[in-house]
């Protein structure tokens, strides 16, 4: 397939299971080009797993994943690494290399993949750090950073090679409202200013609503709903409503499956 396909990433009939637990059953997702796409879902639905499948850190049981029309399961390591250079990924906790400084962390992909002179590397790194507001932290070590700062450095590192696709794994978890606002604006700004595509995994409904162009809600190994955040908020589906409005009980039960409460308190379940 050489013609440019319509979707950036297309997932067809994906099946994946870990142990005896089926995580995805015939999952179909199309991620459009040039937009911010959110993948949402309750904890434990395998959102992060889906990201790892898209980047082939994991291999599906069956089904195929096409990135720009190319089935990534057919790639050898060299071709895969070539493809991965076009991805930038922001890990949940930053995943900065702890033995080198912030500056070297951001410079790391440049030093590994290019033969640019030091002066130019310095320029690029400082520009990227400036964009996330952490030029002043260049000489600090990753262990000295707060969670929000570490994630911003990781974002600078993810975009230092000017990727076409930026992937964010739970970028909003555990951030204070200010850092959260900073990250939300950065996600949007970078997508529009650099003309890239962004994929965002999260369960923060409010933030998704402000930043995403379209979103997929995954539950029970399938896409439960898709559309723009507004469409999802106003949907009729019980499950989607429960998730979008944060209701405790509904199709997704509040209680993990357990024996009858009264019986258990009375000690009758032991027999």
């Amino acid at each position, binding site marked *: 397939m050489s013609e440019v396909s319509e979707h950036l990433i297309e997932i067809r009939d994906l099946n994946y299971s870990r142990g005896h637990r089926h995580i995805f059953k015939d999952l179909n997702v199309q991620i459009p080009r040039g937009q911010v796409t959110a993948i949402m879902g309750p904890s434990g639905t395998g959102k992060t797993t889906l990201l790892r499948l898209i980047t082939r*850190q994991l291999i599906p049981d069956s089904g195929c994943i096409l990135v720009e029309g190319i089935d990534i399961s057919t790639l050898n390591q060299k071709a895969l*690494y070539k493809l991965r250079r076009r991805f930038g990924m922001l890990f949940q906790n930053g*995943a*900065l290399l702890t033995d080198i400084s912030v500056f070297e962390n951001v410079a790391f992909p440049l030093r*590994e993949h290019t033969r640019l002179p030091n002066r130019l590397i310095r320029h690029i790194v400082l520009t990227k750090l400036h964009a996330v507001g952490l030029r002043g932290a260049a000489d600090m070590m990753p262990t000295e950073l707060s969670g929000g700062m570490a994630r911003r450095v990781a974002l600078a*590192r993810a975009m230092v090679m000017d990727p076409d696709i930026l992937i964010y794994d739970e970028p909003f978890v555990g951030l204070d409202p200010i850092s959260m606002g900073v990250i939300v604006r950065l996600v949007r700004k970078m997508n529009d200013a650099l003309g890239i595509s962004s994929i965002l995994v999260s369960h923060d409904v409010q933030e998704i609503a402000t930043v995403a162009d379209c979103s997929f809600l995954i539950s029970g190994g399938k896409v439960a709903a898709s559309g723009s955040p507004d469409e999802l908020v106003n949907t009729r589906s019980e499950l989607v409503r429960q998730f979008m409005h944060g209701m405790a009980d509904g199709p997704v039960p509040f209680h993990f499956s357990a024996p009858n409460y009264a019986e258990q308190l009375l000690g009758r379940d032991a027999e």
Partner: protein
Amino acid sequence: MIRDLWYTFTDFLQTFGKLQLFFVRLILNSPSVLLQRGGLVIKQIYNAGALSLAIIMVSGLFVGGVLGLQGFSILSKFNAEDSIGTFAAFSLLKELGPVITALLFAGRAGTALASEIGLMKATDQLSAMEMMAIDPLQRVLVPRFLGGVISMPMLAAVFSVIGLFGAHIVGVNMLGVDQGAFWQQLQATLDMSDVYEGIFKSVVFGIVASLLAVWEGYNAIPTAEGVGRATTRTVVITAIAVLILDFMITALFLE
């Protein structure tokens, strides 16, 4: 019961096979790492070797001292206390040097390697490298493996020399063995082949200890508990492997 044993056995064979494949991958990647990432290897030689020096030297001094004491008490029964230098040199070069160094190395450098790599895995650093299209094998594992392989024989040599020095202090300076006899006997009986045996052992142990440390770290379950367990396993498995291999190599050289 028998079926359980069978599964344990096949499980062991599978792991062993994977370990061998892993070893082959490390070796195949070694030349390019040495050429292109020499700086990283030198840093790891510092981490595994230079930082283990203090513990190796202190242990060597006291092991040598004990050899001096024990050797004197046994040899003096046969009026052969002049041979104390030979006794210490043979024990150190052929056995104690390589074996104790390997055990200390596993405790000091092996655990550091395993926990460092395990933590890098648990904090997604290895996945992040893969996502940046950088092979963690080349960037993280091979330099650490080579650092260990290169430092281990040097540490064993330092251990033996310091040990001999310790035996000399105890035998000659404290117990009054003649210094001339100490060195003359040593020179007359010690063969170059004995030295080679010691070097061969320390090289093999260096490869085994580094391989197991890197392997355990890389295959650690990526949680705090998993990393802790990997660290413990590194020491235990390395100790067992080194002692078994020591027996086999000794038997080989007795031919």
